């Protein structure tokens, strides 16, 4: 790292939140990702949140073309990408306009002073230049001529103006790294690799990156520089992982550990396509990825593969789950393992494709024709996606049932450090196939619907197994024989059996952990991606002596068996969700307790302070 002796004094912070915002073409996602790597290398705990426009090529300079990447890093535990921004790097007026409200009072702004021409202001629909209008009063504003400085840095090259223009994000990154005393090396290494075949581009980026870094030192604009000490993370080897990556790795791990080939069917849909991209790179693990003609075929092919003895998985978002509904019902009836990943997004209908929401819970639990229960699991952080999807695969095969795994765009795109597990420490994943006829009827026949006494699962007999030829399908099955049956009593029996089988998944669940106090005044029950915000809020409220506990449900259907006793240990219950109240309905259906909802339906995650405010209010309210 360059010698920093000539730098301004360094102030040590416990944490910081930075937001890089610019035009879609400004490379903000890359800039944010690289800063994340630098913070990770400096051993900070961290959480990130990309925010990109729904339009692929929105007109340059407009507010709806703004792409942003938020990152929070610290020396303590970091649970969310941050409520308030300490530093906003705005590449143009539109980015400034869209994101200024997120910057805390007194926060810092680095703006590209060269991009505030009449035309830029017009595109951003700004009547006055915010740099002159007084709008930015109360912030520390650093006007940096990013465009000009980058051009000057590359004057000596033959690169085109466009190419030069594309490197200005490296200037901004270098400057931000300097400001927070994060290392340059991870980005330098990345550039070396990324542009190994294009030495001119590589050198230009490297040069501009270091120019940005040195600019911080040489300009006297910055009177203070920051440092954030390493976090106290558990010993181990870490990497930064996005939720989508964690799901992909979890699936590959499930396939490897179970010995079942992974068949992954998918139709492109935001924000689940990322998973298809990830998994299609792992073919050397025997992973079969199938980009289907539609959502229905993606699920159908996965069920077909399951019938053949593979681990059948499909991923989509809410609208895709709606299309797969009938196929999932067939999975329930034929009792085949199937994992359906729902990367939730704002709905209904096409809704808000790139925004996050938890509004598919009821669809997951109830959204099929007939009595069609199935287990539903939800991941709570990017790294937790790994463990939860692995568990979903274990349940699907152990209980011979479709399982829905819920995550969302916020989890899929967000990243955090992941302590890499030892392969030997992964939960055991044993699967056995039927190989001999079921003897119980004395006729040496195979009974495809005979059940395991513990799990109630039926046997999994792969085609190709001699003597076990059998037929399955969507018509009601006779108990044990699996023949088509219209018998009224049999139907009732089978409906009950299928429900009981799903209920028995609770046998596999470990005791439910309660975060914070094990009993007391208030229990917060959450699920999914809201974990970080809820835990941060619980910490703050407990710091002022309230006895508050938090249960974050991985199993949203069926509920863990010990949830009832936990509920009884608290006076009040608060249920925060990014929807209009869905988990609370499931809870009220099962427990006769008064519960208070906290609902945010804005396509945005909770801020810890929003949850904190609701907690405080709930604590003082008179019990219902």
């Amino acid at each position: 790292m360059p010698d920093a002796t000539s730098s301004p004094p360094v102030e040590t912070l416990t944490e910081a939140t930075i937001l890089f915002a610019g035009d879609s073409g400004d490379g903000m996602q890359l800039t944010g990702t690289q800063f994340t790597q630098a913070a990770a290398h400096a051993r900070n705990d961290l959480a990130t949140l990309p925010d990109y426009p729904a339009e692929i090529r929105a007109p340059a300079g407009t507010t709806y073309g703004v792409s942003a990447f938020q990152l929070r890093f610290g020396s303590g535990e970091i649970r969310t990408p941050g409520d308030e921004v300490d530093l906003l790097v705005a590449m143009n007026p539109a980015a400034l306009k869209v994101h200024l409200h997120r910057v805390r009072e007194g926060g810092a702004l680095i703006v590209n002073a060269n991009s505030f021409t009449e035309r830029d202001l017009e595109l951003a629909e700004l009547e006055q230049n915010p740099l002159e209008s007084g709008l930015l009063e109360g912030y520390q504003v650093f006007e940096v001529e990013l465009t000009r400085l980058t051009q000057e840095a590359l004057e000596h090259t033959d690169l085109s103006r466009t190419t030069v223009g594309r490197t200005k994000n490296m200037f901004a990154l270098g400057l931000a790294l300097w400001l927070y005393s994060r290392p340059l090396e991870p980005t330098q290494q990345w550039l070396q690799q990324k542009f190994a075949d294009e030495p001119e581009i590589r050198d230009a980026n490297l040069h501009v990156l270091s120019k940005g870094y040195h600019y911080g030192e040489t300009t006297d604009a910055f009177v203070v520089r920051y440092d954030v000490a390493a976090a106290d993370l558990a010993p181990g080897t870490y990497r930064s992982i996005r939720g989508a990556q964690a799901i992909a790795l979890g699936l590959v791990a499930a396939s490897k550990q179970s010995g079942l080939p992974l068949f992954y069917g998918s139709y492109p849909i935001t924000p689940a396509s990322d998973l298809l991209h990830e998994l299609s790179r792992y073919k050397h693990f025997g992973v079969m990825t199938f980009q289907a003609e539609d959502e229905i075929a993606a699920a159908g092919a996965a069920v077909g593969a399951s019938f053949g003895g593979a681990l059948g998985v499909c991923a989509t978002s809410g609208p895709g789950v709606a299309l797969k509904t009938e196929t999932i019902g067939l999975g329930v009836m034929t009792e085949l393992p199937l994992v359906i990943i729902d990367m939730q997004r704002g709905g209904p209908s096409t809704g808000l494709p790139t925004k996050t929401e938890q509004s598919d819970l009821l669809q997951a639990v109830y959204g099929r024709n007939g009595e069609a229960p199935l287990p539903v699991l939800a991941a709570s952080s990017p790294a937790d996606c790994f463990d939860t999807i692995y568990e979903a695969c274990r349940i699907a095969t152990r209980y011979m049932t479709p399982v829905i795994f819920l995550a969302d765009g916020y989890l899929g795109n967000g990243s955090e450090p992941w302590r890499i597990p030892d392969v030997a420490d992964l939960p055991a994943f044993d699967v056995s196939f039927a190989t001999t006829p079921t003897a119980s009827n004395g006729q040496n026949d195979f009974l495809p619907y005979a059940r395991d006494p513990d799990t109630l699962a039926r046997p999994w007999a792969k085609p190709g197994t001699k003597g076990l030829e059998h037929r399955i399908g969507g018509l009601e099955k006779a108990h044990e024989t699996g023949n088509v049956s219209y018998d009224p009593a049999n139907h009732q029996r089978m409906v009950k059996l299928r429900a009981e089988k799903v209920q028995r998944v609770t046998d596999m669940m470990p005791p439910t952990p309660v975060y914070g106090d094990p009993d007391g005044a208030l229990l917060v029950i959450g699920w999914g991606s809201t974990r970080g915000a809820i835990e941060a809020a619980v910490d703050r409220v407990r710091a002022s002596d309230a006895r508050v506990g938090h249960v974050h449900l991985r199993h949203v259907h069926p509920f863990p068996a010990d949830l009832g006793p936990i509920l009884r240990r608290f006076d009040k219950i608060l249920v925060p969700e990014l929807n209009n109240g869905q988990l609370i309905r499931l809870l009220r259906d099962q427990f006769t307790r008064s519960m208070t909802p906290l609902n945010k339906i804005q396509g945005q995650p909770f801020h810890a302070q929003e949850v904190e405010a609701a907690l405080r209010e709930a604590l003082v309210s008179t019990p219902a």
Partner: protein
Amino acid sequence: MPDNTSPDGTKKPAGPPGAKKPAGPPGARKPTMPPGTKPPTGPSGGDGADGLTRKDFASDQDVRWCPGCGDYAILATVQRLMPELDVPKENIVFLSGIGCSGRFPYYMDTYGFHSIHGRAPAFATGLKSSRPELDVWVVTGDGDALSIGGNHLIHVLRRNVDLQILLFNNQIYGLTKGQYSPTSEQGKITKSTPYGSIDHPFNPVAVALGADASFVARTMDRDPKHLKATMKRAHDHRGAALVEIYQNCNIFNDGAFFDFTERATKAKAALFLEDGAPLTYDNGTRGVRLEGLQLKPIELTNGRWSVDDCLVYDETSQEMAQLVGRMYWQEDLPRPFGVIYREERATYDELLHTQIGGLVERRGTGDLATLFHDADTWDIS
């Protein structure tokens, strides 16, 4: 979507209410199969290499199609064909969708999967892709394959997944009691079209050719020899093989294909294709000649034309397939039966596993720990 209650529900069908009595076609034999019984073993039930006979392929389930339904003949022929194929019984899988044809797998003593409406090709694609050694058969109907499942049909054909698709075309929705289907002729009076259908129908062969199917054939329920030979050829073909089978629904659309299937008219109306042979029909008294880009019927008995003037069929010619496949409801031309098109092309399942195998060879079998660490890592001690 057609419901599943009738006509093979719990009541034995005497013909669904409102259905007209099966009217025997002129000169046709009476329906031979009473409800709930298994079709009798035919003389051609051959012995397989491992000593299996057609009986070994009949499941213990009562067959519940309407008496006289063309499905019985198809089932019997398939059961007869199975022992002749060089495939272990346990490797054979029948998948179906919804409709009368959907029940087919229940009657076969092989692995079977009765899936949902129109989607059998999707299930079959997943199965065959992950288990290429299996012998996969899709059984479907005109509504199942061409209406609700049209999308899956064209995609399984273009991908060329190595399987056989038996499309039972009866030009009607039978299971839901008689609505017009996507292959019903324009003007057809049905329950849902009392004033006549205004829909232009599909020619399934043309759809398949349009979807770049690598094997397309047409046959009929009432010619078991041709039916079996055609299915055998479909099975021999590597890739997605579509076999359209004209199937008589004697309850809701009786006689739809009698022109082609019954003795009195068959010779004049049906042309049986043979690779390398001239296009002739009507016991060799007529032929089909290519005039420019048009196919024309010619008389071979009046001295003007001879068999040498007939187009010699090449089943591997896409151009001929397009012309002959389109011989459809053209009054003066016969309807072609047999293998209309055949092409050798890599199959989807083969390409998938070649790609995977190549990557395993190049990169080695994936190692989980390596994968987990395949990123910028840092150690905390």
